[in-house]
């Protein structure tokens, strides 16, 4: 028995309808010639770009690339945690100026506060954003039930398994019902079995929530399994080498990985990653 889904706790931002999709049809994210350099003086290293990219509202986009290709930097730029060296970013048609309440992030390492209970951790956005308490609590409990953490609400994070921690982190990220969900290698710290289980669970949850999601991963299979579209990035400085629609039916499950189309897409992406450009 699953709990009834509670009503949204935030009054929808202007320009959104009940489903959270923008009525004006602007893409969730747009990047125009975005680059990012690190270091200064003689030591400047280009980490990323230039990148042009548009992510349509309501889709699940996976970005896959070798480690150090700047994919996490790309996510941080979209999150507004970092500013681009050059180029422009827009979120739902508006120039991006720093982080937004409409963006939820799941970090690589759960980043739960060790002194707070699971429920308190999940409720953090409600506290920080001063959301109505009762409604937020109802949604938190609903999310915790949905992710199988119902019996662990009062536990401290160190008492949970890695997968459970990441589920709690996911609940926290979607508590305020953000328009856009950013997933920065959310399964990176987990073992292979938990990874697969959790990624399929995430896929179902995402369908349930109906929001835009951007997944950063170095696992091609994971990227295809979850995404409507996969973007393959090159080595540093990260640029887009492949942008491909994943035309696999939903809901997806363990058998999706046996689909010939899945194998075909995976092969294309792998070939691209392993035959790196050489100047």
């Amino acid at each position, binding site marked *: 028995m699953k709990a009834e889904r509670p009503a949204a706790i935030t009054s929808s931002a202007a320009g959104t309808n009940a489903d959270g999709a923008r009525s004006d049809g602007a893409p969730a994210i747009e990047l125009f010639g975005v680059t990012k350099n690190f270091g200064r003086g003689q030591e400047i290293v280009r980490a990323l770009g230039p990148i042009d990219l548009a992510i349509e509202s309501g889709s699940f986009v996976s970005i896959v690339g070798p480690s150090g290709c700047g994919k996490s930097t790309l996510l*941080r730029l979209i*999150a*507004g*945690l970092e500013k681009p060296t050059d180029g422009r970013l827009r979120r739902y048609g508006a120039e991006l100026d*720093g*982080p*937004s*309440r409409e*963006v939820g*992030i799941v*970090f*690589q*390492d759960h*980043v739960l*506060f*060790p*002194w*707070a209970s699971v429920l308190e951790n999940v409720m*953090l*956005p409600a*506290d*920080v*954003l001063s959301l109505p308490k009762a409604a937020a609590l109802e949604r938190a409990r609903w999310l915790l039930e949905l992710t199988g953490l119902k019996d662990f609400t009062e536990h*401290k994070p*160190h008492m949970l398994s890695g997968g459970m921690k990441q589920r709690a982190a996911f609940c926290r990220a979607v508590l305020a019902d953000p328009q856009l969900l950013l997933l920065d290698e959310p399964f990176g710290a987990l073992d292979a079995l938990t990874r697969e289980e959790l990624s399929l669970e995430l896929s179902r949850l995402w369908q349930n929530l109906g929001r835009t999601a951007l997944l950063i991963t170095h696992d091609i299979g994971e990227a295809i399994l979850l995404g409507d579209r996969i973007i393959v990035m090159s080595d540093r400085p990260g640029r887009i080498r492949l942008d491909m629609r994943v035309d696999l039916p939903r809901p997806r499950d363990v058998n999706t990985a046996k689909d010939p189309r899945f194998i075909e897409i995976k092969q294309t992406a792998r070939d691209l990653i392993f035959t790196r450009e050489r100047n």
Partner: protein
Amino acid sequence: MATPWKAVSTRATTPLIYFVLMILWEAGVRLFHIPGWMLPAPTAIIAIAKEWAPELLYNSCITVQETIIGFVLALVLSLPLAVIIAFTSTTRRLLYPILLGLQSIPKVALAPLVILWLGIGNWPKIVIVVLVCFFPILVNVVAGFEAVPKPMLDLMYSLRASKLAVFRRLRAPIATPHLFTGCKVAITFAVIGAVIGEFVAAQEGLGYMILMSTAQSQTPLAFAAIILLTVISVVLFHAIEILERKLVTWRP
């Protein structure tokens, strides 16, 4: 059957070692005829402690009082300052180097000056205690406020959390174990500070008793006072540790 015996034996080990050392001490003093003014035997110390019990108790109370008042004052002064330093980068740049410089002064060296300024009585001793407690607490708490892992800060920034929210939800809880570390260092210093103050100028307190009894070659009484000081130090330290265990139930 083996487990309770093991638990008892581990608990009993430390007292047993103390007991054996006492016996060795007593035997050594008797065997080598060490004069009482140099090293009194435990039995001699116990005998004189019984005789002087009211005085020892009264002077213990004085020293404990100075220690606790000074410690609490240091806490009350250093916490807001630590918050100010952590909150605004300007005050950190201006104040923190000065405070770190002041920290290097051996505070006990200031004791005669404090007595000179404040005269004889309880306040100069309390001020010396404040001086020795202040910096360990301040430095640890400031370090605690800054020991926030970057991903946690990113999480708060991603929610556009205000400085106040970051402080309340993140910096303050992170700093709590550091506060206790500082307090544990400070409370041991506090007892030392009180004794130094009493050494320099006082008419009461355990420090004063040690000074008086050694001047009169009443070494057993000085030993009794020193043992009491040790007990006070240990008890205060453990009181803070118990409080810490109650308040900091999480592990990083």
